[in-house]
């Protein structure tokens, strides 16, 4: 079954979108969109590092994304708004990555594959990494759910309850790096944030509790992934951007639906 590249692509997109849908809820709740961008853009630098040392793309991307995430985590501990610094880091890392990739000798690289994803070429090994990564992310989120949710609502409430919100933030930071590594082959560095934010945002108006929202965001992510893949094959369009288009369409429907429901 896994010999069919379409089935591999479908499974890869499904696993990625469900993980990003779940983690994306926290990105939305904590207003970490820019944080997500910076981590994701660092992925291109990760690609360059991986190619330079002959590592797996996942390893290079995961490592550099984690380094970027930790750097931002350190900067956020000082209680200042770091919007501007995040902007510098996000685009600085992207530009540096783009330059570094072209400097690698003897390599002719299809940069588009890393910027926008190339899900049709995923191998069995890639599929294993994607589903393994998605499983780890879900499992860690499941274990930290209570503390993460409390810390997200109010760090002070978490401290008073004997929890450590800074540690929870670190966990979230590292999970974000893991998801970036998982998602790069599917949607590429530029659209990972879209896959984090859009399914969660689409689920918001249709749900009553954080858990419902997380569940629905996973479903919307999954539907977007499979729907987008199908549409892309039909229209011969790039898969990653098409998945994001379908997710954005579902967001529009969910938002309108929620509005109409609240009027009734």
């Amino acid at each position, binding site marked *: 079954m896994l010999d069919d590249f379409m089935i591999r692509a479908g499974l890869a997109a499904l696993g990625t979108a469900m993980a990003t849908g779940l983690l994306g809820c926290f990105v*939305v*709740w*904590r*207003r970490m969109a820019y944080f997500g961008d910076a981590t994701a853009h660092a992925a291109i630098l990760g690609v360059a590092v991986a190619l330079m040392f002959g590592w797996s793309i996942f390893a290079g991307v995961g490592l550099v994304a984690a380094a970027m995430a930790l750097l931002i985590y350190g900067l956020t501990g000082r209680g200042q708004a770091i919007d501007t610094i995040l902007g510098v880091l996000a685009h600085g890392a992207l530009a540096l990555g783009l330059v570094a990739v072209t400097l690698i000798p003897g390599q002719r690289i299809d940069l588009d594959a890393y910027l926008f994803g190339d899900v049709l070429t995923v191998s069995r090994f890639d599929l294993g990494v994607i589903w393994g990564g998605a499983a780890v992310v879900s499992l860690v989120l499941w274990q930290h759910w*209570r*503390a993460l*949710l*409390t810390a*997200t*609502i*109010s*760090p*002070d*409430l*978490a*401290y*008073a*309850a*004997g*929890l450590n919100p800074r540690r929870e933030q670190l966990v979230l930071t590292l999970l974000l790096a893991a998801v970036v590594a998982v998602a790069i082959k599917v949607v590429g560095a530029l659209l990972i944030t879209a896959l984090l934010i859009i399914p*969660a*945002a689409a689920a*918001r108006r249709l*749900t*009553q*509790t*954080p*858990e*419902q*929202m997380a569940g629905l965001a996973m479903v919307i992510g999954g539907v977007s992934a499979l729907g987008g893949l199908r549409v892309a094959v039909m229209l011969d369009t790039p898969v990653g951007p098409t998945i994001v288009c379908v997710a954005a369409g579902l967001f529009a429907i969910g938002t309108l639906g929620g509005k109409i429901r609240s009027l009734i």
Partner: protein
Amino acid sequence: MTALLSATGITARHGRNTVLQNVDISLNAGEIVTIVGPNGSGKSTLLRVLIGALKPAKGTVTRQSGLRIGYVPQKLHIDPTMPMTVRRFLNLPNAASDEDATNALHAAGAHDATNALHAAGAHDVMHHQMADLSGGQFQRVLLARAILEKPHVLMLDEATQGLDQPGSARFYQQIDAVRRDLNCAVLMVSHELHVVMSASDRVICLNGHVCCEGTPDVVSAAPAYRELFGTGTGGALALYRHEHDHHHHDHDHDHKAAQ
């Protein structure tokens, strides 16, 4: 008696500003202690040091081991992107049974607050979104959540902000009832001097440092307190005395009107 919670020599800074200097405070079981002080006097900072949210530059905080703190923050902003029912909120951070949650809402007076506004019971409040609650209801749900922690210490930071005077008077009555039920200590921060004074066993007057401390009578008579709160508190203090001292029979009708 050993204190449930005590802090000695606390100095805390925000950036370069020293907000608290050499503050000592301790809290014993079952007592209601109120911290009063002008804006920017470090009241909220002191609470944040006590719950462990802020590391003091100097000084130590000692908690009895296993101490549970029920914290009611001054303000809680739940991001509008997060759907959150009252029932779900009461499960944070620890799951509570439906029965406990209902009881806590009753104890916090959320039932009454809702009755007045929507003619709905605590059961219905459970399914409301936190974002749809009024200021008074929201504060009561925060209190209910803190009660569910079965705290040894209940900490309230300006908990009656946004409530009118009768509303905050009722709120403090509720706090007193909660204290008796749970047998917990209460530490609160407020600027509503008259209500707070009458509800407290001990008052700490804070202005970066502890200006004076003692029973409400002692503090309200202290020169440092009068200096801080000026003549504007004359009326409030009179009201405080009035409520506790029923010799002034000729003012009795005023008293009722004030309530």
